[in-house]
């Protein structure tokens, strides 16, 4: 027999307690990060479990794909791969040229950073916030503030890390801002999220600033959070209303924020050995000298005749001298960085 009138603490007391505790949590929210982190580590199995139906759906879609579909997909991928590898050949050449020119100018060489592909496990079901949860956490070395990109552009940054998952705030969230630069004329601005998934805005931009619809915005590298040069958004409208103090500029994020599945986590500070300039620049150029002309030789063989592109820096003693001369200044600049 269940008692109708239960002795013990009254419901009013429980409610008051619950409200007081909630308010305490709301107030202390910023100092509770360790608790939140350990709680979300404990709860991460639940997230993995909640992700299972999606994984099964994906798997069955793959398992039951028809031969025809796979053939079409394969053909398309082959075509893309061909186009990409052609572009990559040119890119490799340009990259080395750029590195050498930058070294000549004494500015630090751009580095290739460590990247990890992560899968989106969960999308915010909160209509006011925009973030996704990834399947990598502090075990992989993910840290708060880490930049996240996808194939098209910048997705956002990590705001919370647990043992096996991490939460990424997307550029379109209303609390997110990212320093950008217009590729056409290097105008700097800050792009703020609007809370609308396919729109971000540039605030406090003077009306006389030269920004037009269609401009590409890339990360400027200022603020030391996002590495320089990743595409962020394309300007879709600029209005210079006399009633407003600033121009109203709207842009559309290039990353497909509403349908991302795989993203790249980037470690801008961890570099791959082949771009380490100190002492290694000689070695790395040797490696590239050995590597690239081979590729180009193959290319020239394939194209039959036209051997001029093969005559790169390996045959050019002047450039090699420059390379050796460069070893010292870059070492200096690097040691400066370390000292800083």
């Amino acid at each position: 027999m269940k008692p109708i009138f239960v002795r013990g603490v009254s419901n009013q007391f429980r409610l008051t307690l619950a409200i007081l505790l909630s308010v305490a949590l709301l107030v202390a929210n910023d100092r509770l990060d360790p608790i939140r982190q350990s709680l979300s580590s404990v709860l991460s199995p639940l997230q993995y479990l909640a992700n299972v139906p999606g994984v099964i759906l994906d798997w069955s879609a793959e398992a039951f794909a028809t031969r025809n579909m796979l053939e079409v997909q394969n053909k398309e991928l082959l075509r893309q791969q061909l186009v990409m590898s052609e572009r990559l050949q040119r890119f490799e050449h340009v990259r080395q040229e750029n590195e050498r020119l930058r070294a000549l100018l004494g500015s630090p060489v751009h580095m290739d950073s460590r990247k990890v592909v992560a899968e989106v496990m969960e999308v915010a079901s909160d209509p006011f916030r925009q973030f996704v949860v990834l399947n990598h956490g502090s075990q992989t070395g993910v840290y708060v503030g880490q930049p996240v990109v996808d194939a098209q552009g910048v997705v956002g940054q990590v705001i919370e890390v647990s043992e096996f998952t991490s939460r990424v705030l997307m550029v379109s969230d209303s609390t997110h801002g990212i320093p950008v630069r217009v590729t056409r004329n290097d105008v700097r601005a800050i792009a703020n999220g609007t809370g609308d998934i396919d729109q971000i805005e540039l605030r406090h931009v003077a009306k006389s600033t030269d920004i037009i619809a269609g401009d590409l915005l890339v990360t400027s590298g200022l603020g030391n959070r996002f590495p320089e040069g990743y595409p962020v958004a394309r300007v879709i409208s600029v209005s210079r209303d006399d009633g407003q103090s600033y121009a109203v500029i709207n842009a559309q994020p290039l990353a497909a924020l509403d349908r991302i599945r795989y993203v790249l986590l980037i470690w801008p500070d961890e570099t791959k050995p082949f771009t380490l300039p100190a002492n290694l620049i000689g070695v790395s150029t040797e490696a590239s000298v050995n590597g690239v002309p081979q590729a180009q030789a193959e290319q020239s063989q394939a194209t039959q005749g036209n051997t001029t592109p093969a005559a790169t820096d390996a045959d050019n003693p002047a450039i090699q001298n420059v390379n050796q001369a460069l070893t010292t200044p870059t070492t200096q600049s690097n040691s400066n960085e370390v000292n800083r």
Partner: protein
Amino acid sequence: MSAHIANGRLVVWLTLFIGMMFQIMPLPTMVEAWRPDWLLMVLVYWAMALPHRYSILTAWILGVLLDVLLGATLGIRSLALSLVIYIVVLLCQRLRNYPRWQQSLVIAGLICIYHALIFWVQFVVVGAAPFDFSMFLPAISSLFIWWWVFWILRNMRRRYKVR
């Protein structure tokens, strides 16, 4: 007797965690806005059936866990859930005797209150967000799903003799 209680507790917490799992399950963007409030419905059921065992503080704890899972400011959902469950506890004698359709209307109303509370606290804590009626869409989907949730949970309660 104690084995029964332990058993019952396991069943209740299992259903609550399954509700939570449905709450955070990834859905296509189109359906996302219509996601029923599973956890709230499960909590409402247990608070209605066993108000002396699972009520406001249970709701508070699950609210904190849900906030952690959703990455929201801690305390938002715990506040909203405990207030809603308080209302349920006050109404539980009446709610039990309502016909099913009337119950689901009350649930829809509770879900509206829940979302309005979340919006309000978020507005105060995080900052301005546009008011959007689409945040009440879960009330409509929950209206139809309550019937099934109630049916499943009542069967489980009877089967495992949760008291």
